[in-house]
């Protein structure tokens, strides 16, 4: 249990760090883009919205930095992230709540698929070292060197412009109303194919490579040799002896590379105009919408931390040594 407690504590510290960075950035960096926006919007902002933007971006010069910090936390706890300029006058929190499920669905499912597929391929590639599987490595290296968004562009040009098999943008067909019906779900799945495949193809290589190298290392261990000497079946040695130990670094790596993968996935959303957080962020960049951009950053960080905690629980289940420590 100590293991999980330590990790949870670490994630709390990370969350605090992310929030503090978010608090400090607009105060440290020169220029006052938010003030400019407020001036531009002028009378259309009501006094409440104005006040919360002042708190979030430190425009109130009469307060000390410490008072500002306390007020900032107060706003966060009330779920008040300010108003979005791009989607004026919708509050940032509402915009995020609307796009969050799309990102969670797309990125969550594709990341798990990529991890499972990559790990499985890595197990085989490492086990059958020296066979044709070795050629998989240069190919996947090339695929992983391609930026996510560019692969997305190619996918659109091939599969929705040249051969119009799948829709190029959006999360569901225009005209449909989000509801729990076969037609709507079908449309959502159809729209998720291209962005999903893009994310899987570009992120799978890392898992294959890491797993293969660990398999190669583990295969030379004595306990694998003993298992062979006992005459166990190949399949049993491969999965129950070698792979089970080799997968541990992949799982701890899963947690750490998640932030990177999510970054790539956000770009895929931008390219496909998928209605998730990435596309919202993209629109925010265009409109210099700092409340929205900072909100996206906070929500994504929170999601990554929760996913990390889940990966830790997985690690706990697979590696008995971490359970004994406590």
């Amino acid at each position, binding site marked *: 249990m100590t293991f999980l407690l330590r990790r949870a504590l*670490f*994630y709390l*510290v*990370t969350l605090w*760090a*992310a929030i503090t*960075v978010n608090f400090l*950035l*607009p105060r440290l*960096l*020169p*220029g006052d*883009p938010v003030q400019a926006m407020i001036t531009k919007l002028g009378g259309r902002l009501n006094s409440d919205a104005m006040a919360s933007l002042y708190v979030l971006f430190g425009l109130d010069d009469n307060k000390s930095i410490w008072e500002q910090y306390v007020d900032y936390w107060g706003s966060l706890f009330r779920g008040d992230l300010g108003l979005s300029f791009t989607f004026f006058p919708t509050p940032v929190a509402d915009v995020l709540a609307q796009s969050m499920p799309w990102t969670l669905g797309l990125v969550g499912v594709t990341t798990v698929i990529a991890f499972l597929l990559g790990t499985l391929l890595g197990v085989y590639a490492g086990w059958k*070292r*020296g066979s044709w599987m*070795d050629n998989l*490595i*240069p190919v996947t*290296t*090339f695929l*992983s*060197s*391609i*930026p996510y968004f*560019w692969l997305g*562009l*190619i996918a*659109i*040009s091939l599969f929705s*412009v040249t051969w119009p098999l799948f829709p*190029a943008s959006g999360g569901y067909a225009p005209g449909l109303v989000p509801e729990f019906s076969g037609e709507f779900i079908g449309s959502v799945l159809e729209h998720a194919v291209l962005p999903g495949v893009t994310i899987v193809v570009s992120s799978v290589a890392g898992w294959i490579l890491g797993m293969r*190298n660990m398999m*190669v*290392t583990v295969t*030379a261990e004595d306990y694998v040799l003993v298992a062979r000497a006992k005459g166990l079946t190949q399949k049993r040695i491969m999965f129950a002896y070698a792979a089970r130990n080799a997968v541990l670094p992949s799982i701890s790596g899963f*947690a*750490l590379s*998640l*932030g*990177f993968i*999510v*970054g*790539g996935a*956000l*770009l895929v959303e*931008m*390219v496909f105009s998928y209605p998730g957080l990435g596309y919202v*962020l993209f629109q925010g*960049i*265009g409109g210099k919408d*700092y409340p929205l*951009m*900072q909100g*996206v*950053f906070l929500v*994504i*960080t929170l999601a*990554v*931390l929760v996913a*990390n905690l889940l990966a830790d629980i997985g690690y706990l289940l697979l590696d008995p040594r971490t359970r004994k420590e406590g």
Partner: protein
Amino acid sequence: MNFKTKLGLGILAFFTLIAVIGEWIAPYDPSAMSDDLLSPPSGSHWFGTTMTGQDIFSQVLVGTRGVMVVGLVCGVLATFLSILVGVTAGFLGGAADEALSMLSNVFLVIPALPLIIIVASMLPSADTVLIAAVISLTAWAWGARILRAQTMSLRRRDFVEAARASGERTWRIIVFEVLPNLLAVIGSGFVGTVIFAVMLQITLSFVGVISLSTWNWGTILFWAQSNQALGLGAWWWFVPAGLCIALLGTALALINFGIDEYANPRLRKVRA
């Protein structure tokens, strides 16, 4: 050195050369407009032209420098930071280690891309070197983590103990006894950072948060995307820059495999 590593080094040398001479050998001014609007690759325009008749081949050539400079600057800065944090943490141990490891793990877990997008778009002037510095700040943590682990396994070895017993100062032990044994790890960390930095810079240009006044491969993709090159079927507008990115990334990854195989003999190819 095996074939894969040589191939990687060869491609890297090629791009480095282009980065130096690209501006002189480019057949056209990359920003100059002409009457050949959106024409496919031909003898006079090898990679075709853009919507406003700019020569894409020249844009790719001239843009190579920006990419390579950011990669190099970030690689050096971030590697320096990772050695500073990672080796110190691993060698000192105790509370200093706890604090420094915590710091690098925090940097690893926080999603870098949205953070850098915010920082880059708040900066009043986002020139190449400034962007490189910002990217380095988020890119050092992975290397630091690996270096820490390696240093920890080194610090109780006999030769380090011997140096300590003979009264060497701590910084001297670190620089002359520990660091030389970490060179392979540092090298592979450097190459990994360069890949990360190049990708990030291209991404930032593509998204449109870095100034578009200087050319790099990401800028080309930005203009292609914002002019609907996909819908117009102008594949030549975004294919060359993307392939260059993928080639450079592959080259660096191949070099990294070479370093890994050098450091971990079990990964070397089995001879049949």
